[in-house]
Each structure stands twice: as structure tokens, then as C-alpha cells.
């Protein structure tokens, strides 16, 4: 029996386990939305902007480990997805984006709402398709899911011309994908693994540096086992948060520009750095020739192109982090806790994370209270800016896929739509959205679907009435010339919440923080918007200025001379 291309597409998506689609309709994708109307196995969440759809699908993927799916129509719908696709690409998130396109006969003719979206997204997708032949629908969707979710994950875009959606096709499901040109390396080389085990046994001052790759490979258990058996301390990247519980005695928290001083000291002085599923981003390394300069480097990563990209690697092991760690653990003998660990712990006592306690409302305190109230068990979806770094420093993650934020692209506006994706993925968890007063205004429209779907997201606006992170740089490196960062002109977020049908609260004093959070925890049928009026000019410390080394680390605001 023949069905339409659009129906074949929806069936293919279902066949690959799609349960939720985040999207926004329009003319050229109409046949697909029509087919969706009859499909009971998939929930569609109508976002209020295509960027929101992409971020929601991205966060759904981050929270579940499954492939996130988003829809947009041709032209402006497709171009509105671009930031979201780039965001997923930079953080290696498995996502399939389906876009409508003008008829194949109109391609390249500047037809109404035509945009060359495969051309536009070429450098920000793992792969993309212009699906010109209706016969290929099932195969292309199968390949898209396979490519998005295997090897180093990433977004795949499938552009579907209207006539392809409308065509009559025989639908034959495709489950198995065979691509001669795409064979991701899975197993690590045994000789390299043995070498790594030797290096670990021989090291006096080893440190593990774990990234988002550990989480996407589901390798947390193995990572913790390695850390415990060898007594090696672990620091994680922003995206690696939760790879090891940060309440674990072996956790050093986050490293890098705003990482803990002790994690950065440990890396600066270690003689062996075991990098797992991490890519030596400049926000982690700072000045390259000063980074871990006394250390031999083991690099475990699924992407061969990451090995040796910026930092010299002594023992590269390419493959799936989980598989490699399982093999590596077979060679690893228990190690005693060394004086090195004592030294690092000493740094931890000497240079703890700290903030002022003078009666003002400090963001770090708010995060600590959120942690307390949520018992460290919430999914935390965080935007970009100062509040992101405070959240990373003070919300101690206890499980993988708990901390969701835009790392590589640093996309303001990511977090509210992302919180929708996360709450849809994890109805069992409290979801906190920690966001700046700047970032929330970039995607505030997504309050609507959160209300419509009764998602009890707890939105924490860290309101400093500034583009705070930019102001911090201006304060420290640009002579306090506060060019275009003042956000005192802003909407009344309480009224705004009310207008959307969410609950609004304003919190100005430290003692009001906990009652507000507790109240938010009680609400289970709509989002809560909490406007925290925090100390306006609080800065994020420690800070290693961009491109500099640990010697330049600032632990607090420079004293005025």
C-alpha cells in the first residue's frame, strides 16, 4: 500500500524511537505536520520560535542520551534553527533536524521561502541531506539517526522538499545502516591501553581531566571506578559536570578559566594528565604552553581529529570512552593514596571557593540554597554568563546528564527552551533553569509552551541588571568602561510571568531565598519565575584571564591601589 512521503517520514522517525518532536509549522512542511496529526505515538511540542525548538531538542538529547528531534519549515523557519544547530554541533549533541523545503522543481530559483539550508548548515552539522528522492526517505532517516548518535555525536539536518513529502511511496522500514565511508572507531588500541595503564602505574602526581565525552559515552561508572581504584583525583569540564559526583572525595570540581583554584593547581603541577572525552578547549587550557607543562598526557577520545589538535599527546587512545575504560580497568592495580593527593587537598583547604557574606543577596548563596532545597538531585539547565559559572562552581552535580548548558557556543537564550526539553525528558525530576536577566529576554517567549504543557520548571533569574559577564570583563580589562551592558531598563518579570500564566516571585533578601525556593518546589502544574535581585557588581572568581596561565589567576577582585 502506498503512503505519502510525509507519512513515511513520520513512520521512520517512530521506527527510530522518536517520542517527542519540538517544532514550528509552516507552508513547506505542512504535509509533514498533516501526517503528524494522525500519529498517536509522537508528542509534538509547539515552541514559539524555531531556535527554541532546536534548543529543546538538544536538551532533550542531553537529558536522555537519545536523539533529539526538531521540525521547522523552509526559509525563515530553517534559518531560525541555525543557532540551535550550531549549539548542538559545538557540544556534540545527537539531534536530527527536519526542515521543509520548496519543491525540487523550484530549488535554486529563489522561490518563496527558499533558503539553501543544507549549504548554510554544512559547517555546523555532522552531516546533512537534501532529500530529493521519495524512495530514499526511510534510508536517509535511518542514516541520520545512525550518524547523529554514533562516534562523536552531532546534529544531522534533513531538508525535505514539499513534493517529496507529497509523493506516494512504498514504505519499507530501514533498520540497519551500512556506510562504507563512515566507520567510527569503537575499540581502543590494546597496545595504547596497556601503555596508558603503565603510565598510570608509574605516575607520581596524576590527575584525571574528564569532559562531556564521558557523559555521552555513558562511562561515568567506569570513570568513578578508575578514580577509586587508583586514588586519582578528577576534575571535569563544564560539560563533564556530573561525570563523577562532585560530592565524591576524589572530585576537584571544574577546571579552567573559572574553575576551582585547586583543580587548576593540580593540573599545573601534575606529572600525568589523563584526559577522557575532553577536547582541551581554550576556556580549559588558557595559555597552551603553560598548560599541564610538567605532564605526560593520555588522551582518550572517540574523535581522532581531537587528538593532538592543540596539546601534544603522549598516549592517544581513540575509541569509545566506555569501552576503553573497561579495557583499561582490566590492567589497573589499586594504588595507595599518595602525598600528592594530600598536597592537592591542602590547596583545596587553602583556596576554597568563597564569596562575601554581608547581608546582601549573593548569587552563590542562591545556588547553594537551590542545591540544598533540591537535595542535589535536580536537573539544572543553565544559560550563559556569570550565573552559569556560579552554577557550575556551586551546584555540586551528583549524577551524569544533570547539568545542561551551552558550552562550546556559549549561546545566551539556550536555557529556557532547553529546560522545556529537559523537563519533558525527565518528568520525574525537579528542573531548575538558572538564567541571567539578559539571557532570559532572548527566548522569553518559550514561557508559553512551558505553561501550555504544565511544566513545573523553576526559573531562577539571577538579576543583576547587567550583561554581567561582559561587565566583569569591562571592569577587569577595559578600565570599567561599561559600554552597553546596563540592563536596568527591563520588564517586570513578575507581571510577565503572570501574563503568561506562570507564577512570579521577587526575592531581594537572603532570608527570602529558601521560602521562595520551597514554594517553587511545591508548584507542580506550571512554571515559576523567580526574580532574584542579586548584588549587582558581584564577579566570578577565581578567574584565569583568557589566554593566560595559572600564574595570572585572580582569586578575588583586585584591590584598588
Amino acid at each position, binding site marked *: 500500500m502506498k503512503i505519502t512521503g510525509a507519512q513515511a517520514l513520520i513512520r521512520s522517525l517512530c521506527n527510530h524511537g522518536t517520542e517527542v518532536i519540538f517544532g514550528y509549522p509552516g507552508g513547506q512542511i505542512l504535509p509533514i505536520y498533516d501526517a503528524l496529526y494522525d500519529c498517536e505515538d509522537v508528542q509534538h511540542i509547539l515552541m514559539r520560535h524555531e531556535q527554541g525548538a532546536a534548543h529543546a531538542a538538544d536538551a532533550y538529547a542531553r537529558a536522555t542520551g537519545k536523539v533529539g528531534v526538531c521540525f521547522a519549515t523552509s526559509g525563515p523557519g530553517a534559518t531560525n534553527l541555525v543557532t540551535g544547530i550550531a549549539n548542538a554541533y559545538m557540544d556534540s549533541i545527537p539531534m536530527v533536524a527536519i526542515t521543509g523545503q520548496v519543491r525540487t522543481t523550484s530549488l535554486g530559483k529563489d522561490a518563496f521561502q527558499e533558503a539553501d539550508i543544507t*549549504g548554510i548548515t*554544512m559547517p555546523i552539522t*555532522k*552531516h546533512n541531506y*537534501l532529500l530529493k528522492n521519495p524512495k530514499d526517505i526511510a534510508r536517509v532517516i535511518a542514516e541520520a539517526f545512525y550518524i547523529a548518535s554514533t562516534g562523536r555525536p552531532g546534529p544531522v539536518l534533513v531538508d525535505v522538499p514539499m513534493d517529496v513529502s507529497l509523493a506516494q511511496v512504498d514504505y519499507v522500514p530501514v533498520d540497519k545502516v551500512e556506510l*562504507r*565511508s563512515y566507520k567510527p572507531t569503537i575499540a581502543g588500541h590494546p597496545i595504547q591501553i596497556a601503555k596508558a595503564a603503565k603510565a598510570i602505574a608509574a605516575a607520581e602526581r596524576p590527575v584525571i581531566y574528564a569532559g562531556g565525552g564521558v557523559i555521552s559515552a555513558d562511562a561515568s561508572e567506569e570513570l568513578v571506578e578508575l578514580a577509586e581504584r587508583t586514588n586519582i583525583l578528577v576534575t571535569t569540564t563544564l560539560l563533564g559536570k556530573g561525570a563523577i559526583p562532585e560530592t565524591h572525595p576524589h572530585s576537584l570540581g571544574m577546571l579552567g578559566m573559572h574553575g576551582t583554584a585547586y583543580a587548576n593547581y593540580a593540573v599545573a603541577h601534575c606529572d600525568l594528565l589523563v584526559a577522557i572525552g575532553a577536547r582541551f578547549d581554550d576556556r580549559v587550557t588558557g595559555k597552551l604552553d603553560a598548560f599541564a607543562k610538567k605532564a605526560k598526557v593520555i588522551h582518550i577520545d572517540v*574523535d*581522532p*581529529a581531537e587528538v593532538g589538535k592543540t596539546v601534544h599527546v603522549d598516549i592517544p587512545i581513540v575509541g569509545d570512552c566506555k569501552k576503553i575504560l573497561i579495557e583499561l580497568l582490566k590492567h589497573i592495580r589499586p594504588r595507595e593514596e599518595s602525598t600528592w593527593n594530600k598536597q592537592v587537598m591542602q590547596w583545596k583547604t587553602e583556596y576554597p571557593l568563597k564569596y562575601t557574606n554581608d547581608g546582601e543577596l549573593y548569587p552563590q548563596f542562591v545556588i547553594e540554597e537551590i542545591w540544598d532545597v533540591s537535595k542535589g538531585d535536580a536537573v539544572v539547565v543553565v544559560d550563559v554568563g556569570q550565573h552559569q559559572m556560579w552554577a557550575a562552581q556551586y551546584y555540586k552535580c551528583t549524577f551524569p546528564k544533570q547539568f545542561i548548558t551551552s558550552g562550546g557556543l556559549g549561546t545566551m537564550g539556550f536555557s529556557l527552551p532547553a529546560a522545556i526539553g529537559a523537563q519533558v525528558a525527565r518528568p520525574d525530576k525537579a528542573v531548575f533553569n538558572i538564567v541571567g536577566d539578559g539571557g532570559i529576554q532572548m527566548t522569553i517567549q518559550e514561557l508559553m509552551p512551558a505553561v501550555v504543557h504544565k511544566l513545573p520548571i523553576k526559573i531562577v533569574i539571577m538579576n543583576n541588571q547587567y550583561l554581567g559577564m561582559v561587565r566583569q570583563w569591562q571592569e577587569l580589562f577595559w578600565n570599567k568602561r561599561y559600554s552597553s551592558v546596563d540592563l536596568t531598563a527591563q520588564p517586570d518579570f513578575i507581571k510577565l510571568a503572570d501574563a503568561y500564566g506562570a507564577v512570579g516571585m521577587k526575592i531581594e533578601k537572603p532570608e527570602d531565598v529558601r521560602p521562595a525556593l520551597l514554594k517553587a518546589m511545591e508548584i507542580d502544574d506550571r512554571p515559576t519565575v523567580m526574580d532574584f535581585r542579586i548584588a549587582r557588581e558581584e564577579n566570578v572568581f577565581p578567574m584565569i584571564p583568557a589566554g593566560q596561565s595559572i600564574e595570572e589567576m585572580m582569586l578575588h577582585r583586585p584591590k584598588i591601589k
Partner: protein
Amino acid sequence: MPKNIIQHTITTLVENRPGVLARVSGLFARRGFNIESLAVSITNDPSISRMTIVVNGDGNVLEQITKQLNKLIDVIKVIDYTDQPTVERELAMIKVNAETKNRAEIMQIVDIFRAKIIDISEKTFTVEVTGSVAKIDAIEALLESHGIQEMVRTGKIVMMRGANG
């Protein structure tokens, strides 16, 4: 050329599909690399195309590009022929001014380079020449003095010497 910058010859075997050339050339363009020459055609397997790319650049950056090329889903294989024993050929057609008084000399040059005159008009010869890039550079330089009207070169193609591919 500054130190570290050397000429690389990279060959990729790719799926013979629309858009693949854009993906491949995009990796060079994004890093500000100019492609000196590019030859693309199908292979003995019509579903596979072969691209031979000549570019000048820093070895480390090119290694990174090669790795990124390998990651492209449509790329089946990447071979960097730099420093490998290869045979290389390029073909050129050169339309050169050929007044009666110059014709004998041009024909002599053509002869020495084992080139061919493939078209002729009252005022010009069109010369076809194949050989290494250096050989074509050499004949071009000699014909230059007669005035080259137009020239087209295919770009270099290479193959490994011996039985290995």
C-alpha cells in the same frame, strides 16, 4: 614560502554525489587555505569520485584538515601524497601567438616537449602538453615570449608508484 609552509598533494576518494565538492573545499576555505589546483573525476568505480587537491600550507594545519576530511561522511579515503613516491601528470592547452615568422620556433619547442599542436588559425597555435607540473611550467615560460592568448591547465593528478594504491 615561509618556513613550515610546504606544498601538499592530497587525494580523497569520495561518494560521487552532489554537494561533496562543497563539503571538501569548505574545510580548506574555512581555514583560509587557497586551493592551488583541483582535479575531480569518477574512478573505475562510477559511484566513487577522486579529488586531487594541491595546497600550500603549514604541515600541522594540513594534518588537522586531513583529519577533518576523514570525518566527512561522504569521504571514503584520504591520502596525503606529499613525500610519497608518485607519478604525477597535468595536461594543459595553450593558445599561443603564431605569426609565420615564429611558427618554426614554436614547432620546435612543441617537439622538444613532446607536445602537440591540436588547432591552428592564421595567427595562433593551440598546443596540448602533458607532463609533470614542472614541465608544463617550463613550456609555458618558453611560449610566453611569443604571447600566450589563453591557457587552461587541468590541475595535477597523481598515483602511487608500483603495485600499491
